């Protein structure tokens, strides 16, 4: 699928710079917030900054650069981008606890307002793993089993909207399964585990479905490699998610007589 528009090198450089800008801004803001708040509170851990940077770069790779470029014509590259934008990027970003950092950087009055928003009913819905699974995995089913995938490459706004959705749905899903940041609407481990298994199953089923029934306009060989990449790539990211969820259970279920590690 080719747009038929050929950019000159200077053009591409300009577009790339423009597209990179939000990602650069995200990294700079996080580092600035970490530095600023570390002066008032205890020092913000370096590994969190590393996680955030890695997460933003992962997401950026799906939008700018060679993978993003090839994704227009190559389904395997598209799938690599999907894994980076919708799974690995959000996972690393959630693990970097951006909301915690935001709350301790903002002036108290504004921070209070933010935390009131976090406690609001809409956020209760948006942090329920059932809802986020429908948005996340359900969205992917719509994308790959209808002609939306083909339409996305014809319309720049649709392309932007779908990529934003993949990222946000991935982020909210991850945040609804593992609680790294303050989570006012907490749900039990069993509930989150069951939903995680269903979501992982939905992802695996879809990847084999893509392998068997290529989306419109995708050659069979690309659909096969892309489906397998989605299957095993998804497994790798979800293993981390499962590990963190179980680790949190392990810590929460600690017997009382074992004193907390000092």
């Amino acid at each position, binding site marked *: 699928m080719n747009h038929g528009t050929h950019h000159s090198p200077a053009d591409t450089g300009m577009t790339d710079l423009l597209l990179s800008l939000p990602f650069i801004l995200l990294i700079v803001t996080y580092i600035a917030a970490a530095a600023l708040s570390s002066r008032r509170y205890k020092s913000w851990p370096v590994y969190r900054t590393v996680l955030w940077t890695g997460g933003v770069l992962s997401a950026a790779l799906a939008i700018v650069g060679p993978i993003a470029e090839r994704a227009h014509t190559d389904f395997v590259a598209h799938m690599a981008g999907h894994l980076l934008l919708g799974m690995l990027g959000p996972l690393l970003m959630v693990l970097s606890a951006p909301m915690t950092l935001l709350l301790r950087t903002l002036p108290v009055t504004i921070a209070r307002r933010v935390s009131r928003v976090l406690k609001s009913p809409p956020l209760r819905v948006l942090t329920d793993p059932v809802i986020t699974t429908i948005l996340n995995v359900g969205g992917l089913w719509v994308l790959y089993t209808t002609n939306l995938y083909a339409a996305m490459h014809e319309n720049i706004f649709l392309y932007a909207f779908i990529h934003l959705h993949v990222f946000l749905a991935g982020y909210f899903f991850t945040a609804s399964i593992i609680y790294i940041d303050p989570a006012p609407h907490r749900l039990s481990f069993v509930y989150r585990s069951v939903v*995680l298994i269903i979501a*992982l*199953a939905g992802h*695996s*089923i879809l990847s084999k479905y893509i*392998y068997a029934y290529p989306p419109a306009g995708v050659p069979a060989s690309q659909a096969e490699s892309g*489906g397998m990449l989605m299957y095993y790539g998804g497994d790798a990211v979800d293993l981390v998610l499962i590990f963190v969820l*179980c680790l949190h259970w392990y810590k929460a*279920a600690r*017997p009382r007589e074992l004193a907390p590690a000092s």
Partner: protein
Amino acid sequence: MKDQTRHTQIRSTAESQEAYSSRNLWSGFLFGVGLVAFIDEAVFHQLLHWHHFYDKSTMDIGLVADGFFHAFSWFATVAGLFMYADLKRRHALWRRRWWGGVLLGVGVFQLYDGIIHHKVMRIHQIRYVENVLVYDLVWNILAVILIIIGAIVIRRSKPSREAEIK
């Protein structure tokens, strides 16, 4: 559960084991399920290339069942091991019962894989050869043997053996 945790300190190992006897079984079972799925993936899919990722005769319901089996076993591996660590820190690990659970988990899911996945839903065959029946027989008989051994091991670690320890 809260009651159990409160009194662990003054309990002997045998008492802890008994209090957590079902968690020992579950931890082993979940780990067994994960282990057999891992062996299936690593050995039969990746190393030998006997199993296929997808087979044209797969039924759609097979795709769904396979997806859930895959997701559950992936989760079970990690959860089973964390439960194992939990039992250890409580001094409630009961090795025989745990291993019984592992054997049962391996056997049950191998039998399920061998009958439901391979034969009923035709997700893929064990190997793409003419005499696949031989492979099916070995696969499923082995599964039944593992289930029987697992059941025997579990029966011999009944909570009533408490007297033996003291």
